């Protein structure tokens, strides 16, 4: 019994000293409450922010893939349930529209010395969020399969991809060499957004919420999406990014435009398919004929600070996040993500994303009604993708569904 008490005391003492040792974030007191999506790279940031806990500073985090549906209600109450919301270019829109996050210019001046200028998300000149990593889809290709099909140059455009797929099929190597995340809903819409961005077209008429996809760019996008499906396994309408990863690792897919953030899982030499991993080429997202914009939206992940909280908590939250975003954290985990930290030396696995970005890919639109467009695309394109509807009709349906939703949310009258 006595031993136990001594041990407990010793452990307690250790925790206490550990606490003071880590409280090197320069925060006196405050409560840091983080709401975030749930993936590994964010976990690293949150763990680093948690180092600031102790001595009157509490750091808690709720990591959930349902963060998008939680953020608006949780930040609307006063005081807000969370002080920090991690967001991306799509999920920041509702927070801006409902005026739930605060400008950060003053904090950046005070504590943001280690931030790079490109990390600052500015709306109307005001810093509203801090980005810390980027993501995009890009080409993952099987070198061995391309060689076997005597394709010398890995394809760079969708036309070349189709030609390569034909060769692979004709040689009898694979019947369905292509895959795409065409699962009805969010993924299908994302595929459309990727290719539509590559046409150079815009989703809305300038300065308004009027949809502008019902045009030749939209038709070209749908034509490309449909043409690719002839080389995909028949159940292509139910393939998500995870499903596509499994198909690739099972050796059933040769060319795909997959999420860069999942590169580790595809190229892990200790993973389930070391041979495929070693033979994977990472290239930028393909382009469309006659255009030179890579067909993938660019995404950034970042954080914003809630408006409905005390200044004390807001300052503590910003400082804790600055501690978490210090370049050292990125250096310690170089493969976890494509970090935006100053001086970050990106590993080879990040080349797909970086080349897609430097090749001129366009960011996912931050417009407040883009989410409605995304939902409409995800719901209305499946009939076309299954061959039950013409491309013209599908685009008309998308516009009509979008208009209905935009009227209900007050963006269109």
């Amino acid at each position, binding site marked *: 019994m006595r031993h136990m008490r001594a041990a407990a005391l010793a452990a307690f003492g250790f925790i206490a000293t550990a606490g003071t040792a880590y409280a090197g974030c320069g925060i006196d007191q405050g409560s840091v409450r983080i709401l975030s999506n749930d993936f590994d790279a964010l976990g690293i940031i949150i763990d680093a922010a948690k180092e600031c806990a102790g001595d009157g500073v509490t750091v808690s985090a709720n990591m959930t893939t349902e963060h998008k*549906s939680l953020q608006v209600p949780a930040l609307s109450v006063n005081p807000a349930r969370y002080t920090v919301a991690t967001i991306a270019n799509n999920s920041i829109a509702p927070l801006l529209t409902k005026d739930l996050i605060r400008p950060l210019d003053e904090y950046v001046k005070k504590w943001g010395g280690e931030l790079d200028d490109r990390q600052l*998300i500015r709306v109307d000149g005001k810093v509203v969020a801090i980005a810390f990593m980027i993501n995009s889809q890009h080409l993952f290709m099987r070198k061995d399969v391309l060689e076997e099909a005597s394709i010398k140059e890995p394809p760079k455009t969708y036309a070349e991809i189709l030609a390569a797929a034909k060769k692979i099929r004709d040689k009898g190597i694979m019947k369905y060499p292509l895959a795409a995340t065409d699962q009805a809903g969010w993924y299908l819409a994302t595929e459309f957004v990727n290719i539509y961005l590559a046409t150079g077209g815009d989703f809305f008429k300038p300065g308004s*919420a009027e949809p502008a996809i019902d045009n030749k760019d939209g038709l070209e996008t749908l034509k490309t999406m449909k043409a690719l499906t002839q080389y995909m396994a*028949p159940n292509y309408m139910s393939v998500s990014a995870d499903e596509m990863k499994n198909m690739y690792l099972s050796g059933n897919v040769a060319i795909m435009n997959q999420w860069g953030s999942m590169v580790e899982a595809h190229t892990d030499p200790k993973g389930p398919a070391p041979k495929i991993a070693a033979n994977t080429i990472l290239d930028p997202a393909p382009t469309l004929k006659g255009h030179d914009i890579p067909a993938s939206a660019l995404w950034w992940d970042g954080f914003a600070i809630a408006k409905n909280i005390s200044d004390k908590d807001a300052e503590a939250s910003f400082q804790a996040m600055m501690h978490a975003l210090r370049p050292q954290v990125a250096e310690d985990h170089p493969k976890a993500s494509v970090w935006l930290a100053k001086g970050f030396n990106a590993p080879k696995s990040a080349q797909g994303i970086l080349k897609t970005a430097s090749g001129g890919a366009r960011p996912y639109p931050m417009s407040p009604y883009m989410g409605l467009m995304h*939902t409409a695309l995800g719901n209305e394109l499946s009939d076309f993708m299954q061959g039950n509807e013409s491309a013209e009709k599908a685009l008309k349906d998308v516009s009509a569904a979008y208009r209905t*939703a935009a009227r*209900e949310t007050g963006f269109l009258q």
Partner: protein
Amino acid sequence: MRHRDFAAFIAPSLIAMFLFIVLPVGSIMVQSLFVEHDQVLVTTKNCGPFGCKEETRVDTQATEKLRREEPLGKFNGLGTYFNRAHLAIAQVGQIFSGNHGFGDIVSRLYDLPFYKALSFTLVYTFLVTPLCMVSGFLVALGVNAIPRMIKGPVIFLSLLPYIITPLLGSLILFWMINTDGVIGATLQLIFNDPELSLKASPVLTWVTLIVYGVWHMTPFAFVVFYAGLQTLPRDTIESAMIDGASRWERIRNVVIPHLLPLATFVALILMMDNFRVFEPIVGFSAAANATSLSFAIYNDLNGQTDQLFGSASATSVLTMIGVIILLLPVLVRTWRDFKGRAR
């Protein structure tokens, strides 16, 4: 019973009904009549890691002012009910005023989200309900006839599909019917068609969902019918046997009439349950081929960034109306039975 005692006796349940039924339903009805305020848009310059871009944003202060003036939102009357996402009055009018025959009407109606959801919901309800009742009844008869010793385990096993959470059940089956999965690969082998995929065509997706529905809900029908079988009057059965009635005749003339009131109850519950089919659509990633009214509500509330409360409420009210219409025949029957008995 004195009036006061009666009131005290009934009050708690009245309060509970008001709190848990009347209030939510009322609030949904009110909600469905409103849409969000007009958003005041301004064009601004947005900058980030990928450069700067002219984009619109909402002028939050101007919009907030509108919101404060009318906190419920903009009154829209039945506008939401009649828009394209629901009853689509304008589109339906167009379809009926100019079309190329019946097939064209059906395919164009099916293109509208509400009618698409409604058609699957109705087909699902009207196929799964009777199939469940038949298979539940057969399982009950079978289990009733097996020796006492193994009855317990058999009942437990037969209940399993119902115990499993629908979402998990459908996810497991979804993986099994994958072209690489046990069921998917076996079907390919049986039909000698390497292209066969249950997920690829709308018809096969519907069949899969309906088979799943029957598999999942049969135990409910089974357990109720099995309980009913325990109350079978032994003497009637025995006299039927003495009269030389075969097993089939006994079932037709004794067992089925005995279980008929239970069948009404089972039909009622199954119809309500099946009408709100939802989980298998998510579990089977079937939204491309089959949507239901509940799925439409989920879709409205689970949008990318915005939640369409008005739209979801309108669909909910339409669903309630659907359930009432669906159950009306059964309810009327029950009411008549009740009155007949009271007399």
